């Protein structure tokens, strides 16, 4: 919900090429990443983007595979819009917003081929690893799809398998191996949502901007080594306003540019995490 006057102010600013917080339409808010926020998770991270803050934890389990993919592991994505994070979120059945966010993030990761599901097979047709990607909002100020999707891939990148007892065929929770998840790192997908208000397109909305927008188009993009150009792995149009073909084309082009910027940021954060990891191991030995 957004006041009509707020919406009017947002639209007027956008028409002048600026925003209420003085960003340009295609500028993102600063992003901060903190890894290892829960020691008991196989991988965890908190991503802050402006005032929006999303936590992601990876948990693993062993389950039976789907009958149409007997030699592949499984994955499940959930997004909790915690009442802790906003007066607009309530307890009870997951809202359609939370279902949609989780499903869109899930599709991008699945379709990009980022996770090598075949390597998550323990015994064909009987036992496979399941990867649970659980997202939760800690503070909501808009753009939950993009921030959530970023948290999910970062958490996956740092996750480690738990110990598995071959005799009893059970997971020893709380005991971790050094083994990383089977990921095709060159296919790492990143998510960019473009929003439309009036005749303007913009990214990374605050909550007020997001609620003022007439439509949005989420794109999940990757740049596999085998491809000359970026690849779009998933898309979702949201909101009631129709989009013209030319608008969609422009959104695709701008999203591809933002993907490149975001990719640099992700590489830097992961590099920092790797260095930190080595340092903390060294500290332990000393």
């Amino acid at each position, binding site marked *: 919900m957004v006041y009509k006057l707020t919406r009017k102010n947002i639209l007027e600013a956008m028409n002048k090429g600026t925003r209420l917080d003085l960003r340009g339409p295609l500028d993102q808010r600063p992003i901060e990443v903190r890894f290892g926020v829960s020691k008991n998770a196989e991988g965890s991270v908190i991503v802050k983007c402006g005032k929006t803050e999303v936590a992601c934890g990876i948990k693993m389990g062993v389950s039976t595979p789907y*009958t*149409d993919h007997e030699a592949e592991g499984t994955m499940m994505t959930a997004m909790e819009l915690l009442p802790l994070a906003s007066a607009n979120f309530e307890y009870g059945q997951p809202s*359609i917003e939370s*279902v*949609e966010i*989780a*499903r869109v993030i899930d*599709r991008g990761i*699945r*379709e*990009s*081929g980022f996770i090598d599901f075949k390597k998550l097979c323990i015994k064909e047709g009987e036992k496979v690893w399941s990867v649970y990607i659980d997202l939760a909002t800690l503070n909501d100020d808009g753009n939950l799809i993009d921030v959530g999707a970023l948290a999910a891939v970062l958490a996956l990148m740092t996750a480690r398998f738990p110990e598995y007892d071959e005799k009893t065929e059970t997971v020893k929770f709380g005991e971790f191996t050094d083994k990383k998840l089977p990921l095709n790192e060159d296919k790492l997908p990143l998510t960019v949502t473009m929003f439309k208000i009036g005749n303007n397109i913009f990214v990374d909305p605050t909550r007020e901007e997001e609620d003022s927008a007439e439509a949005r*188009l989420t794109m999940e993009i990757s740049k596999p080594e085998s*491809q000359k*150009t*970026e*690849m*779009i*792995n*998933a*898309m*979702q*149009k*949201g*909101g*009631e*306003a*129709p*989009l*013209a*073909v030319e608008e*969609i*084309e422009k959104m*695709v*082009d701008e999203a*591809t540019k933002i993907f490149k910027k975001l990719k640099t940021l992700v590489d830097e954060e992961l590099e920092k995490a790797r260095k930190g990891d080595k340092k903390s191991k060294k500290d332990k030995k000393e």
Partner: protein
Amino acid sequence: MTKEEKSLYTKRFDGRKFEELREISAKVGVVPNADGSAIFAQGDTIAIASVFGPKIFHPKNQQNPEKGVLRVHYGMLSFSVTERVKPGISRRSQEINQVTEWALTPVVMLEELPGTVVDVHINILQANAGTRCAGINAAALALAHAGIPMREMVSAVAIGKMDKTIVSDVTKEEEDYEDGEGATDIPMAYLPNSEKVTLLQLDGKIQPEKFKEALLAGKEACKKIAEIQKKALKESE
């Protein structure tokens, strides 16, 4: 097509031309109890839609005094697919409800119907890919048949990319294609008069430039479907 771009998918499984749609049959007035209804079959995918309303929205606190509310309920019948689906609401069906509402709402003149709700029920009788699109096509017909004021028709189709080939109206067999770049599925809905897109989803792997080609293929396919929908409405009179 340059030599480099040669696609592995040179012939469609069912022998159709790349831009050719499956055989379509459409009929309105199939559910006598409903205010409006339609059946829409796109090859082996069959959707039935019925419309109840406009009626007073209960509970009253959910009424909108400025405009009516369009509510979509999509469901696959348990026996519509090879492996039984559990009846009832799933995360998938919730998402389809939402995107279908977004696809249909722009054409329904809800500002003429304040305080009311229009319920659209879509059920899939037989599924062979493209069920949300067939559902939208059936729902648009059912809304028109119910006499709900509408600005224009909505038509939907699933465009696919099989390896490097763009095809219109994909089948389940095509959805599962794995050679080369595999299959990309792009369901879209289009307003043929105002030339705008109201549903757009995608999953798979596609280059941005190829995606633009797919958008145009979708536009052309939807125009053809709109003609069939209009014919079905005229035949009912």
